[in-house]
C-alpha cells in the first residue's frame, strides 16, 4: 500500500522519531567520498513545482539522487500548464510515464491531497499555499535535536507572518507531537483566524517571550501573498517583531535562532544575528537533504511505506 506525506499531523510520534533517526544515518552519507546509496535504484521521483523554490526543490532533487532514484524536474513555467492544462491532467500524464512518487509544491492549499486521490504513487507535500510544509518542520525538528539534544520540553517561539506561513503550521503540529511547547508571536493582523484552536500559546510581545525560549524561529513576511497592508511600515514591523542584535542579547546562552529561508536581512532578522553562532540557518539547509532522503526511503524503500497517511 502506498502512503503519502501530506501533513505534519499525519505523523505519529513513532513515525516522526523513525524519520529523524533514519535521517541521522542518511546524514553520514553526505560526509563520505561516494555520496550515493543504491536504495531507490529504478524508482522515479517527479519534482512537480508550480511555485518558485530554490532550496526545497534542489534539496529534494539531491535527496532522490543520493538514493539513486531517477528524478524528473517539472516546472510549471514552460510546460503545458501555461497552455491551460489542469493539475489533474498534468499528474495523470506524468503517472502514465511510470512515476513512483510525486513531490509537489503548489500555491493552492490542498493541492497535494487532491493529487494523492488521483495518482497511484506516493505524494510528498513540498509546500501547499499557506497550508503545510511537513518536510520543513521535520528538518527543523532534526536541527533542534542536533543542536540541543532533545525536542521534548523545549520552548519554541515562532515569530512573524504566521498567517501566510505553511512552515509555522507544520511546525506547530509536529512539535506538538514531539512534545515541545510552542509560542507564536506576531502582530494580530498576521495571525490566522482560529489560531486559538492551535496547540500553541499566542503572544504579541516578543521581548517578554524571548528570554524564556530555547529556540527562536523567525519567519519571513510574505509580502507576495499580501493584497493589503497588514502593518504600518517595514520599519515599525522590524522594530517590534524583528530579531536585532539587542534582542538577541536577551536570549539564553544555549538558545538557537532558526529561519526557514529565504530571509530578508534587516527586516525580520539582523544580519549579525543571521550569521552569528546561534544561527542554524545553514545547518537547516544541510539537514534538509538528509531528512528528505529519510522520507523518500521510508515511503518508497520497501514493499509498503513505513510512514505517512493513506488517502482514499
Amino acid at each position: 500500500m502506498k502512503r503519502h506525506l501530506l501533513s505534519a499531523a499525519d505523523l505519529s510520534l513513532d513515525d516522526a522519531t523513525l524519520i529523524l533517526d533514519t535521517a541521522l544515518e542518511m546524514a553520514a552519507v553526505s560526509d563520505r567520498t561516494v555520496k550515493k546509496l543504491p536504495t531507490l535504484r529504478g524508482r522515479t521521483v517527479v519534482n512537480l513545482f508550480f511555485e518558485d523554490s530554490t532550496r526545497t526543490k534542489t534539496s529534494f532533487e539531491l535527496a532522490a539522487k543520493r538514493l539513486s532514484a531517477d528524478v524528473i524536474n517539472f516546472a510549471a513555467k514552460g510546460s503545458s500548464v501555461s497552455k491551460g492544462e489542469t493539475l489533474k491532467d498534468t499528474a495523470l500524464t506524468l503517472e502514465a510515464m511510470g512515476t513512483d512518487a510525486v513531490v509537489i509544491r503548489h500555491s493552492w492549499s490542498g493541492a497535494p491531497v487532491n493529487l494523492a486521490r488521483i495518482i497511484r504513487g506516493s505524494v510528498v507535500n513540498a509546500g501547499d499555499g499557506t497550508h503545510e510544509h511537513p518536510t520543513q518542520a521535520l528538518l527543523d525538528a532534526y536541527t533542534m535535536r542536533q543542536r540541543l539534544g532533545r525536542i521534548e520540553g523545549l520552548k519554541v517561539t515562532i515569530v512573524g507572518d504566521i498567517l501566510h506561513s505553511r512552515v509555522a503550521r507544520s511546525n506547530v503540529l509536529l512539535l506538538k507531537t514531539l512534545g515541545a511547547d510552542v509560542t507564536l508571536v506576531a502582530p494580530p493582523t498576521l495571525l490566522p483566524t482560529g489560531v486559538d484552536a492551535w496547540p500553541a500559546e499566542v503572544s504579541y510581545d516578543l521581548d517578554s517571550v524571548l528570554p524564556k525560549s530555547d529556540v527562536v524561529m523567525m519567519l519571513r513576511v510574505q509580502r507576495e501573498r499580501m493584497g493589503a497592508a497588514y502593518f504600518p511600515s517595514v520599519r515599525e514591523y522590524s522594530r517590534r517583531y524583528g530579531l536585532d542584535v539587542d534582542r538577541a542579547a536577551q536570549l539564553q546562552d544555549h538558545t538557537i535562532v532558526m529561519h526557514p529561508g529565504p530571509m530578508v536581512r534587516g527586516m525580520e532578522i539582523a544580519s549579525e544575528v543571521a550569521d552569528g553562532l546561534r544561527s542554524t540557518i545553514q545547518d537547516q539547509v544541510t539537514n534538509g537533504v538528509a531528512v528528505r532522503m529519510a522520507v523518500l526511503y521510508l515511503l518508497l524503500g520497501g514493499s509498503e511505506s513505513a510512514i505517512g497517511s493513506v488517502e482514499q
Partner: protein
Amino acid sequence: MTTVPDRSAQDRARPVSGDIAQARSVLDGPGLSRVVDRMAHELLEKTGGGADVVLLGIPTRGVTLAQRLAARVLAFEGVAVPAGSLDITLYRDDLQLKKARALEATDVPGDGIDGKLVVLVDDVLFSGRTVRAALDALADLGRPRAVQLAVLVDRGHRELPIRADYVGKNIPTSLREAVHVQLTEHDGADAVLLGPARP
C-alpha cells in the same frame, strides 16, 4: 546441478526467524566464549598479529561479536584492533519484499578503511546475501586492502559464491530450521539455539 529448495519470497527475505521456545541448545555460554577465543587467535594468526585490521560488525549481534573479538585480541596480545559497525539495510537486495525498515548505526572507526584489512563480523552465515550487501556498502565507504569474513555460525545453504575466513561453529541445518544466536548484551545469556523455522 543442485536443486534450489522452493521457498516463498517472504522466506528468502528474512529466513532466520523461528519459534525460540522450541529450540534446543547447540552451544552454551562457556562453549561460545571458547569459540570466540579461538576465532580471536585465528584472526591474530591469519593477519600476522592484527596490524591494520578493522573489525566491522553487521548489526545487531555482529557488532557485539566484533567488540568481543577486539577485546579478546587485546587480552591475548595487547593489540588494540578498532571495532565498528556497518549497517547494510540500504544495500539489501530484498528491500522491495518487505515494508521499509528502520536503519541501524554505521560507525566506521577513526582512520576509515582505506588500505586496511577489513574483517566483516556477523552472527550467522546463511544465504550470503547479507555479506554481498556488506561488500557493496564497503565499496562506497572506501578501498580496503583486503576483506575477510568472520561468522560465529555457518549454517550452510549459500545462494551466492561467498565463504567465511573464520567460522566459530559449522552447524548443518535444514531449511525448516532456524538458528538463534543469543548474546548476554542483547538476550541476557550466551547461547546458540537450533529450532524449527516459522512455517
